[in-house]
């Protein structure tokens, strides 16, 4: 559990944003940065027009196998070269950003599967945030669910963050998140806005106070607030008001079944939040 793993992907300005953010995190954590590119074959659909003649002659299977293997080989070589160039550029940028011991890895694998295999040596995972259309976007929710490591989702460079917003709801997941924030060197020295959404009762006030205490004793400067309303709406509002650079929260505390029925705050925030997100599992 040692590396900062950053997933580099070809779309838009994301690689730079992911790179810069990863460099910052690796410096804060003093953890080696590993830039990862996954060649997921299923993501390269067949571009060549297949023959629609609908006939099969003698030796059709053998000929087809040969043809498809060749096609795959060509595609794989191209994608591999492209991936290498992308990783080289990312490595260059990470060096410029003075990342901690940056290195690169390229794998032929299913994306989620690859991350799961690398999980034991992962301390923090950095993913580019994308819409559902792009290749990384499709993976985000299953990736978050499949991995049990902190995940930083971003679409812009996080270089000198000054303030983060911690969403707290008293659940086991969020208490765990609180503890991780308090113990990790990643966010040390930043100001913190601690938010709890719920009715103002003795219990909730008590809980929020406890959480604030925990952060203060870890050396954070904390501004705690108890607000009533819809959790996701309030959180998005507060991000605007406090102009925090980062939203920190526990992710997917509830089951898939509940998610299906009532939706998930995490998913909503992943979709709608414009600031980088640190999801703690």
């Amino acid at each position, binding site marked *: 559990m040692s590396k900062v793993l950053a997933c580099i992907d070809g779309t838009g300005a994301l690689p730079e944003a992911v790179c810069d953010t990863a460099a910052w995190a690796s410096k804060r954590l003093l953890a080696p940065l590993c830039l990862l590119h996954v060649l997921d*074959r*299923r*993501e390269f*659909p*067949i571009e060549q*027009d*297949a*023959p*629609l*003649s*609908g*006939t*099969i*002659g*003698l*030796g*059709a*299977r*053998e000929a*087809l*196998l040969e043809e*498809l*293997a060749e096609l*795959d080989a060509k595609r794989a070589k191209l994608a591999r070269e492209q991936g290498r160039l992308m990783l080289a550029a990312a490595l260059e940028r990470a060096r410029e950003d003075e990342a901690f011991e940056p290195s690169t890895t390229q794998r032929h694998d299913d*994306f*989620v599967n690859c991350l799961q295999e690398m999980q034991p040596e992962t301390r923090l995972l950095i993913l580019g945030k994308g819409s*559902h259309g792009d290749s990384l976007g*499709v*993976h985000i*929710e*299953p990736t978050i669910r499949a991995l049990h490591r902190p995940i930083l989702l971003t679409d812009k460079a996080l270089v000198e963050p000054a303030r983060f917003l911690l969403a707290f709801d008293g659940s086991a997941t969020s208490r765990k998140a609180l503890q991780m924030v308090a113990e990790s060197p990643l966010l040390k020295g930043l100001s913190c806005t601690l938010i709890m959404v719920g009715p103002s009762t003795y219990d909730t006030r008590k809980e929020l106070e406890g959480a604030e205490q925990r952060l203060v004793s870890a050396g954070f400067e904390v501004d705690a607030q108890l607000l009533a309303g819809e959790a996701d709406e309030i959180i998005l509002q507060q991000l605007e008001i406090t102009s925090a650079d980062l939203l920190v929260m526990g992710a997917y505390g509830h089951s898939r079944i509940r998610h299906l029925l009532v939706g998930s705050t995490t998913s909503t925030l992943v979709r709608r939040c414009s600031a980088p997100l640190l999801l703690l599992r």
Partner: protein
Amino acid sequence: MNPSLHYNWFSNIRGDILSGLVVALALIPEAIAFSIIAGVDPKVGLYASFCIAVVTAFAGGRPGMISAATGAMALLMVTLVKEHGLEYLLAATLLTGVFQILAGYLRLGSLMRFVSRSVVTGFVNALAILIFMAQLPELIDVTWHVYAMTAAGLVIIYTFPLLTNKIPSPLVCILLLTAVSMVMGLDIRTVGDMGELPDALPIFLWPDVPLNLETLWIILPYSLPLAVVGLLESLMTATIVDELTDTPSDKNRECKGQGAANIVSGLFGGMAGCAMIGQSVINVKSGGRTRLSTLIAGVVLLILVVFLDEWVSQIPMAALVAVMIMVSIGTFSWESILNLKKYPMSTNIVMLVTVAVVVATHNLAYGVFAGVLLASLFFANKIGQFLFIGKKQSAPNEVAYTVVGQVFFSSSDKFISAFDFKADLDRVVIDLSRAHFWDITAVSALDKVVLKFRREGIEVEVIGMNEASATIVDRFSVHDKPEAIDELMGH
């Protein structure tokens, strides 16, 4: 969207829709032809193809594979239909589905590892021969028009792709031949002569058979082979598609999917079916990869048949025969003929016996059974050769035998005959520490050797018996102790 949902359905939309259309067109003649083999109306095969394709699109374990009414299954139900009629066939189809789902839950899909490459090749070749032979009734005792039409059909199918790759040539063949036969008013057999075509969407119907033991005894002897052959062909086809696309599939899910498909087919008036090697290859070749291609194939098939039934009934049988000959030629493994020279005799015999048994019995299950049995015997024989027994004079009137290699039922005679019981000796040492005793036959062979020496008045000492017999134990749980296998093979 869930990524597996995305990959399994929408990652290749254009390719899947086009290939689904091509496959739907190719499925129509096949479904009609196989219904005729089974002795039922074409609509039974067409409804079956629709139901099976649609259900396996959702429930199957191999995206991009095409399942529908097949020749291998049709051949097994001929007598049932002849003696008991369609309703019993529908009941047998339901029971087949139940067996296949059970097989899926019992994880019998993994038994496919005992089916060797040569058995698979034999199966595929036998299937091609069966499809071809099923066309012969249409070509015997007919006027020269039919031969001319069939020949013209084959020429169109194979030469039209040289002109353009954008239109399926079997479709062109069917359209042209139908037009010719209608314009010239030829008196040749058409699809309409073969029985009823679908004129409506299939409806849910419980098979009209008495629910008693008697019914069960009638359908059971058909349902079991149907279930076995269906799974065999489906799993073999899945392996072929796996290989072509270099992607994995879930074999046990495929078993359950085939079962569900057959149950639905039986309830909507269709016959039992399974995966089709020829059609699956056509699908992959035409660019189909995901479940969407299978779904499109099934739905388009039904739409075409229901709305064009007037036209479909005009298709001359000669055009279908040409298409089916194309399918059988494409299914046949040409390479296997070339490989006969290259491969060892035992491999060739397994392949040829599989083909011969299927062609003789019209039952693919018997062929596979014969092939697997033969392959296992050949394997046992080969492994039995790995036995060496060294003999050394270790002292005056004393001989030391060293046994190295595999001792089991097939090599135990060789083991016994290696010892010289007639020599004039006081003492014999048998060193077994580098031998493997695989079964009880091996142990009793050793007992026999020891006894024979003792009867000659020779004292016997056996060394290393414990190591040698470690392999007898059925479960030496190598999986949780990787070093166990080294220990076992290394001593």
